[in-house]
């Protein structure tokens, strides 16, 4: 008895989380298969029918799983979309990192540069960036360029804003230490500013990873022929609900994996910080 309880205690989080997911899947499956209607008919009579929904509306876990199996391993049609989306996503995110980090660090380091770029950063940050999509299409068309650009636009702001704040919050006492030991600007930057900024940079990257996913879907809905976002859009307009779910779940899975990778990098650089109880 005691041993079982401590097993539960040790895995409480996984057990409760897993149970909820399972419950949710059963409830969902039941809606499509009419389990709940059968169960409630004695109580509610004819109105129990409303507990059955057509697959076209909600599909079901088993239908989604079948569709996923088909798309990944029978027809293999999703791989092309996945590759196409990954390309746009990687390029957009890489560009956002390459621009956002130097931009933010420079704005934090040089006061005048910060004054110059602050209006743009604040304005862009306050705008829903997807509003720029029609303009982007006018400028670069609906190809890869447009998708890279919208992903870039979504991801660059959290990166730049965090990098900016990171430099600003450098402990002035440590700056004084470096100056007292005769460290030049470049050494001060390398040994004090950058290490203290790193957690902020990675937190910004973690936000950007999620924001970029929005770009994948929105960018491809706007007239792209392939990619996960385009696939979702097309399947949706044909009422292929199970395919829509496969697409959405693929994006969810990719997002979770990427955020986890960044979180692991964060932990890797966190050895010098006291662990919060």
């Amino acid at each position, binding site marked *: 008895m005691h041993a079982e309880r401590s097993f539960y205690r040790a895995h409480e989080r996984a057990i409760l989380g897993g149970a909820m997911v399972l419950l949710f899947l059963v409830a969902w499956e039941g809606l499509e298969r009419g389990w709940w209607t059968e169960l409630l008919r004695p109580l509610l009579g004819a109105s129990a029918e409303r507990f059955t929904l057509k697959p076209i509306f909600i599909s079901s876990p088993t239908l989604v799983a079948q569709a996923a199996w088909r798309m990944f391993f029978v027809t293999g049609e999703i791989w092309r979309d996945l590759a196409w989306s990954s390309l746009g996503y990687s390029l957009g995110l890489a560009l956002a990192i390459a621009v956002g980090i130097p931009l933010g660090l420079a704005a934090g380091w040089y006061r005048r540069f910060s004054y110059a770029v602050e209006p743009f950063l604040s304005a862009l940050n306050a705008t829903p960036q997807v509003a720029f999509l029609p303009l982007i299409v006018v400028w670069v068309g609906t190809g890869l360029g447009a998708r890279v650009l919208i992903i870039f636009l979504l991801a660059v702001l959290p990166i730049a804003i965090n990098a900016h704040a990171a430099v600003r919050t450098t*402990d002035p*006492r*440590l700056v*004084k*230490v*470096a*100056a*007292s*030991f*005769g*460290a030049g600007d470049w*050494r001060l930057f390398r*040994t*004090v500013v950058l*290490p*203290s900024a790193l957690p902020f940079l990675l937190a910004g990257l973690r936000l950007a990873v999620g924001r970029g996913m929005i770009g994948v879907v929105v960018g491809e809905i706007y007239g792209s022929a392939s990619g996960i976002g385009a696939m979702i859009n097309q399947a949706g307009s044909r009422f292929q609900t199970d395919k829509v779910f496969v697409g959405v779940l693929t994006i969810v899975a990719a997002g979770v994996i990427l955020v986890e990778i960044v979180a692991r990098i964060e932990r890797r650089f966190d*050895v*010098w*910080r*006291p662990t919060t109880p």
Partner: protein
Amino acid sequence: MTAKLEARDIRLEYVQPRTNTRLVALDGVDLEVMDGEFVSIVGPSGCGKTTFLSVVDGLIAATAGRILVDGEVVTKPGPDRAVVFQDASLLPWRTALGNVVYGLECIGVRAREARERAARFIELVGLAGFEQHYPYELSGGMQQRVNLARALVMDPKILLMDEPFASLDAQTRELMQEELLRIWVQAKKTVLFVTHQIDEAIYLSDRVAVFSGRPGRVKEIIPVGIERPRPLGLKREPRFHAIEDRIWGLIDEDVRADRNRQGVDRGGANF
């Protein structure tokens, strides 16, 4: 004996940005520290003693006057002076060893030699075995030991200490004072030590410079004249109290004068 450090008529003015008024922080500070001597600066809070230390270090440029080390004028930080900072101020992402080698890195000492030298000084301050610990894993007293080793490893001519024990609890502070004297004897350094604790200043020093407040200048220099080594029990001896009373009197005068000038009773001297 020759003067290791000379401050000649140091004046420091600055503009307070909020009120846009010109303030004088230091006005004609003259001070000499002899080779191997331990000199402390005490004074009412806000008298500019920490600011003066920054001027000596070269972090703040004096409006007028000169700082000389071994007779040479200095205007920038250099390896001939090293600071033991208030609040330890260790780089939190570096281990104890990493922090101690920091200054050596800055002057281009090769990594391996820097590590060997740092290890010696970590041992000197009594932290052998803690080289790979991060600052958060060390107690306040241990962090201050790393802070001290970081300055000593530079082998400076002059050690500048800015209220290094202010944030420690009373017992640890006393222990660290005793330790500092032990290390000072071994390392044979010239020390300029800023503190707001009069007994700490007397216990450690050969001479105590009493600053007057706003603008700061040297009001009087009190020779301690008590033989070394000094046991901690010295602090309870009458001759120690006599010096303490004299310094208290000097500072008290100043605080009262300042209070009358402002016409405000702040309720108790705030050291």
